């Protein structure tokens, strides 16, 4: 297969900010001569950052699921719901469609993101060349779908604002929703700090 040359092979690199093309350097402390922003061939410490953020997100995922995210209070009843119990309740209450949506957004998507990002990071580190294109697609999927997993936080925020009838019924956010929001934010950051070019790096050396 005919490979097109990369900038590095031509002895060049670009500034991410002002797009100035400069001569190639390995030095991690190089800066753009024009705008003085740091220059690197690849995103700086991409792997470390992605790992760190991913682990952070994974840590927060535990309290996010263990703590209740929402308290619905009505005249006769007070109910603290975690994400999972909320889904179960929705299913029981006769709206399986909603339950599936919430389940997808709150459980499936974050878990998929952990798995995909983890897989990407591991495969990059092991310099695996297998399915590079598919991995690129996975990466794009992760980036795209990231902010949609804020659905739960969104639901709680809207409900707390809308349902506020004092004694009759009330919805309050509980600490769990904060951790869940942090999971979403950190997985997004992890996805952003991952440099997809790493997927292709090793291909050339063949």
């Amino acid at each position, binding site marked *: 297969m005919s490979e097109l040359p990369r900038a590095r092979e031509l002895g060049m690199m670009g500034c991410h900010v002002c797009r100035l093309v400069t001569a190639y350097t390995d030095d991690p402390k190089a800066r753009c001569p024009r705008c003085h922003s740091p220059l690197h061939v690849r995103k700086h410490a991409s792997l470390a950052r992605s790992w760190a953020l991913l682990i952070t997100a994974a*840590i927060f995922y535990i309290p996010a699921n263990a703590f209740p995210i929402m308290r619905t209070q009505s005249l006769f009843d007070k109910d603290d719901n975690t994400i999972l119990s909320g889904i179960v309740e929705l299913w029981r209450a006769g709206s399986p469609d909603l339950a599936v949506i919430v389940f997808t957004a709150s459980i499936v998507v974050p878990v998929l993101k952990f798995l995909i990002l983890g897989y990407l990071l591991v495969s990059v580190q092991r310099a695996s060349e297998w399915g590079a294109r598919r991995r690129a697609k996975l990466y794009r999927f992760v980036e795209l779908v990231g902010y949609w997993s804020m659905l739960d936080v969104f639901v709680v925020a809207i409900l707390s604002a809308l349902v506020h009838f004092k004694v009759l019924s009330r919805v309050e956010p509980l600490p769990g929703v904060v951790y869940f929001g942090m999971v979403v934010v950190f997985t997004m950051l992890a996805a952003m700090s991952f440099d997809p070019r790493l997927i292709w790096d090793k291909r050339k050396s063949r």
Partner: protein
Amino acid sequence: MSDTKQGNPQDDGELPRPEVRRSKLGLSLIWLVPIVAALVGVSLLVSHIRSAGPHIGVTFLTAEGIEVGKTQVKYKNVVIGKVTNMRLSRDRSHVSVAIDLNKDASAFATKGTRYWVVRPRVGAGGVSGIDTLLSGAFIGADAGDSDEEQTDFTGLETPPAVTHGAPGRRFTLHADDLGSLDIGSPVYYRRIQVGRIVSYELDKDGKGVSLQLFVDGPNDRFVSKDTRFWNASGVDVSLGADGLKMNTQSLATVIAGGVAFQDPRGPHDESPAPEMTAFTLFNDQATALAPPDGAPHYIRMRFEHSLRGLNVDAPVELLGMKVGHVVSVTLDYDPQTKKFPVIVGAVIYPQRLGKAHEKLLKAAGGDEDSAFPKITQGLVAHGLRAQARSGNLLTGQLYIALDFDPKAPKVAFDPNAKPVEIPTVAGDFDHLQEQISSIVDKVEKIPFDSIGKNLDGSLKELNGTLKQVNTDLLPEAKKTLQGVNATMGTANDALSENSPLRQNITNTLEELQRTVRSVRAFTDYLGRHPEALLRGRGADAPAPVPSTSKQGKEVQP
């Protein structure tokens, strides 16, 4: 401090050289983020573990109203825990409920703590737990004294009537049966509710019931060692000499039952009774407040005639004092006389005789049990006999009367017999017959013959007298009456309207009237003209009032 390699893109047409600044970047700072996250996670975990209190299990007969994750455990309405799990026991006889207590509620995982499910309860004594209608059932807790830890509890099926540490005292009551009492039945003192029945159980021998009651402080001080308790349940209707009387403590006791207590009248031990003192539960206020009966003594009586109308519980009276009651009426057979005597067993309370008993005891000496046959022997020798008498003419109810009959024939008395047998005399009906025959005797003794003769003579005399009256007295009387009649007629005529006497009287009266008028005119004239007495009457004076004015006018000119 940075050694920069500056490339110049202009002079050699080369690409610009990136500049390099040295900085002291060591390990990537990004790892701080997961470390902070991990710290947050660990701190959460630690705080969760630290805030977790003891984990206990409580078994209930039913899980009605308990929901996992929702049902709370409350003490004085403060939430101290939550039900986390629930499962059926292996033999399906009860339900095990797992409870996570709060950290500060560790005192509730100790021995003596009681748990029960608070549900709305509607009883005759009132409605409780109404708030649970809305909020759902919760588990109530009541801590004990002990510090000893315990994690497995058996839940109570009914809420405890008394919370731990509540001021007041417990007492025990002994009764023949439970009646309409129940746990929670009120205890009244002067018709104010001061406590309630806490528990009851059958006595071990099954011959009675023991009740525990709790009297709230500070009213528990009214329970003294001599206090009498009685069953205030239901309506006490009594028909006495003073009419129909109805007695109840309160409407609630009519339905739900209750116990009342009061000190006996008169001097008594007023020191407060210690906790768990045992009392007897009397059936009604009258028996409760009566003086104590003392030890019962059994006696037996043998009657040779029918005792129809004698029931068990019929009173035994000594000289009209109720001293006991009949406990058994049985038939015996005497093969020698081929008769069926009736054996009546009775229990008597000698202490009810009061002072008499004391004196008898003193005279007989010895303790009460041994002295009783001796005393009885003495009394029987003095003619003490039992007799079945009719107490109620309408119903024919009999009672046993112990009375002294000095004329009674002597009988043998066995002081060692158990029970003591008291000789009897024939019953009331036979007595009546005796009385009738004695009346007949007396009637026979009346001298009807001589009475008849005397009466006859008197009647004859009366006849003669009457004849005399008829022949001599009556015509004379007739004449007198006629004379009276004639006199009355004359008087009538004289006084009639047209009689001359009456006209004369009228004329005389008119003449007198005229005379009086002239005398008045004369005295009037004399009053005005006294000189007339000397000078004689002048010319006719004109009418008095106009005459003065005329005279005035005549004087003026």
